[in-house]
């Protein structure tokens, strides 16, 4: 069993390990002289580091505080659900049926429509709308039977998570900008059950936030949906709850192709 030695050794109790030098050299010697000018320019870029020298990606994350959402309930036959629902659930089921249409499942396009409709009613959530790519990704991570669409329980589960994270978004948007700023993000993620560390927050901000470091609502949700799904998938594979798992290439692909 090969330990990932290059970067990611964790010590409980917050010992830090060194990791990586950000400069990665390309083999210059094998280049033809006609390209040498281009490559000396390229070399200038290679020595520039963006986040600075050594990245300490993993230290000081407290594993006991990592709390993805509970796994979804076991699948039940459709009529079981209907016989045991309360009024609110019945209402939700009606909405689902309208949304899902004839095939009784919510496609990424249908998800996109409903999400964008809902957020258009909330002026305190700044967003440029959910993209189809983002919705495909969200469907993929929830789509346990690989139909490419969400059944009722899958959709309900996603919806409840989105509601929960929406509340966190609103309560952590302290300056009422409609976005989660770089300073607000760590608290918001902690509240959502994902206490990461500075370097990861920096990378998340680079990936999901705008040039001012502000994350809008669709990106916030998109990020959390992925993070949550991957953590849940991990925990399912971690049968002895040790915090580490061994993956063969099949399991690896299944885990990673979600994102």
């Amino acid at each position, binding site marked *: 069993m090969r330990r990932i030695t290059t970067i990611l050794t964790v010590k409980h109790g917050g010992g830090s390990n060194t990791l990586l030098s950000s400069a990665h050299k390309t083999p210059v010697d094998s280049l033809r002289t006609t390209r040498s000018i281009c490559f000396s320019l390229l070399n200038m870029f290679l020595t520039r580091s963006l986040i600075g020298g050594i990245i300490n990606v*993993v230290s000081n994350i407290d594993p006991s505080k990592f709390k993805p959402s509970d796994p979804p309930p076991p699948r039940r036959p459709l009529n079981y659900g209907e016989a045991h629902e309360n009024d609110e659930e019945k209402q939700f089921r009606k909405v689902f049926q309208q949304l899902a249409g004839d095939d009784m499942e919510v496609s990424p396009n249908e998800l996109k429509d409903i999400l964008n409709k809902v957020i258009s009613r909330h002026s305190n959530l700044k967003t440029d709308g959910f993209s189809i790519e983002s919705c495909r990704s969200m469907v993929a991570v929830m789509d346990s039977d690989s139909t490419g669409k969400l059944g009722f329980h899958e959709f309900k589960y996603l919806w409840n998570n989105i509601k929960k994270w929406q509340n966190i978004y609103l309560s952590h948007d302290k300056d009422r900008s409609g976005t989660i700023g770089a300073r607000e993000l760590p608290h918001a993620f902690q509240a959502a059950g*994902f206490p990461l560390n500075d370097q990861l927050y920096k990378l998340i901000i680079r990936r999901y936030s705008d040039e001012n470091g502000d994350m809008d609502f669709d990106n916030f949700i998109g990020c959390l949906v*992925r993070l949550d799904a991957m953590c849940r998938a991990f925990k399912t594979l971690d049968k002895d709850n040790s915090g580490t798992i061994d993956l063969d290439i099949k399991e690896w692909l299944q885990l990673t192709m979600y994102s």
Partner: protein
Amino acid sequence: MEISVRELRTVLNRVVSKHRDLQTDGFSMESCRAMVSLMDKDGSARLGLLEFQILWNKIRKWLGIFREFDLDKSGCMNSYEMRLALENGGFKLNNKLYQMLIARYADNEIIDFDNFTCCLVKLETMFRIFQGLDRDGTGTVEMNLMEVPNLVLSFYFTAWFWPSGLGPVSRSHVLYSD
């Protein structure tokens, strides 16, 4: 001297629009970012000349495969054609994985050219990360819960998390067991 994600997207969309036999709604920023990330060794999120050339050759190869396995010449892939194309692209997977990929990348069960390319880029990235981690060839890698966020970011920041480089580009990525 370097091409950004946005510039790559412009070039790709321009080129692809000239190939009228290909169905596509254009390359997204996300796919282009994944492409740059796969090739980008210094984490600059830009491609130098050589990196761009390697990527371009890859895309040309994938274009060839797409055309070859678009058996009904519809300009896009259905699930049967997709399986053949993936195998021919060097990815011999299992049923479950094929199904997952098709669910993930298809729109109404068909996969157009930009989604096809995105799928191949991500598959190759993930295979090579795995091989890079499994240097002694045991066939397994160990992963820690704390590393999960890295995976979420992996298509954007491949060079940051795997700076010792990805595994080799092999001719085929085969799952030997099922």
